């Protein structure tokens, strides 16, 4: 167990409360880091992000790429000897980073999530073609990865029209912010 003195605990307490996860039992054994399929795309290993939070290093924790590159595949938490739900901590850090308006380390990933949720807000379901088009426009990059897009269209993997739900009011209710 790690006990901290001083004001480091402010961030620590907040992230614990948001995520509902007690990661202070982390042994820093690095099982998460060794197993993570995406560690090459991260600036801090997963356990190191927990350490940043424990030490109250807010800027480093919220600005890091790891919280965005983590897709929540749970390879880390399945292997964790202390059964810590590391992806849930990453979720809370992402939410805080957005609320605080810090510079997002992986804007493309945030752009993608935003476009996905925009189609869900509109139709109640995702619409891949629109997600891809808007993602590309936002990024101002229409040409890269064109081959894959065309391949998907040819194989009819991208429906041209969205599938919509009937009860639009329910979706409004879901996305209404208090």
């Amino acid at each position, binding site marked *: 167990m790690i006990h901290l003195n001083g004001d480091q605990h402010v961030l620590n307490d907040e992230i614990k409360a948001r995520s509902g996860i007690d990661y202070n039992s982390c042994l820093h054994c690095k099982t998460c880091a060794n197993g993570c*399929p*995406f560690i*090459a*795309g991260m600036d801090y290993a997963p356990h190191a992000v927990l350490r940043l939070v424990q030490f109250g290093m807010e800027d480093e924790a919220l600005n890091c790429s790891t919280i965005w*590159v983590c*897709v*929540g*595949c*749970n*390879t880390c*938490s*399945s292997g964790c000897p202390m*059964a*810590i*739900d590391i*992806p*849930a901590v990453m*979720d809370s850090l*992402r*939410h805080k980073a*957005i609320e605080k308006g810090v510079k997002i380390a*992986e804007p*493309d*990933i*945030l*752009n*993608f*999530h*935003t476009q*996905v*949720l925009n189609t*869900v807000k509109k139709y*109640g*379901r*995702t*619409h*891949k073609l629109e997600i*891809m088009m808007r*993602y590309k426009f936002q990024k101002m990059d229409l040409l890269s*990865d064109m081959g*894959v897009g065309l*391949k*998907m269209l040819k*194989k*009819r*993997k*991208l*429906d041209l029209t969205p*599938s919509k*739900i*009937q*009860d639009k009011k*329910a*979706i409004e*209710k*879901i*996305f209404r*912010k208090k």
Partner: protein
Amino acid sequence: MKKSSGKNERNSGSEKLTFSFFPGCSLNASGHENTMSLLKFCDSVNIELIELEDWNCCGSSSAHSIDHDAAEKLPMRNISLATKGIPLMIACPSCLIRMKSTYLKIKRDKVLKQKYEALWEKPFDEDLEIVHFFEVMNRIRLEDYIDQPGEKLKHLKVAPYYGCMLSMPPDLRFEKNYYGIMEQTLKRLGADPISFGYGKQCCGTYLSVAKPKVAQKVVNEIIFKAMEAGAECLVTACSMCHLNLEIRCSLENPIPVLHFSELLSMALGAQDQKKWFPRHIVDPVPLLKKRGLIVS
């Protein structure tokens, strides 16, 4: 999608099973061939699927990544649509995790339950059973529907790929997990399941869009390891994994990736492959012909 007729030509004597069915966005769009073959399979084993009426997106990775509130409410609405007394079957592992995790949270948390009941104006169903498509394999006997099942996929060397979403996050750690069920089923149908060590490695999910190089690396690794272990094809139960494995593989002559439901339907004698296989990027037809599993 209409209700399946539940008609079964072989009078097997097995009881008809009924499930509410949640297809999810991936099966409903990029994975049409997954849905078609799954419905076909259920129809031929006397399972009636009733599509959850007016279902919505489960929120997927994006809601829990950036909108906590929506991540909670999107699965809630789907749960509220489920019919009492009928198990809810989910074909997409990612949707399953979102819905089941939310369901169990509501069950544990009184305040959340009140929120649920106020939002959807109906009581929370404490006894709703939420299961993955794999659960069907535990509830039917394939032998009741197939003569000589061991001859159906004979000698097809298949690497079962579960993807990461069936590896449960800690809050679902004590829920049933289904590792081994594809191996067991394939073996009963005469195929040779290949162990390759990457069967639960994540496919990269949305990094396929936002960081294609990162996704390509993991996808190539998965497919290469399966080929190295001697597999002639991969089989997956996740529509999104299927898409990523197909579009992000940059290996030369990669092996085809089949949906578990396609192999099951084929073993039961389905003749609709012409509707499914043209939608695959790596054509599985030459391999299946070579193994004598499809003709013409």
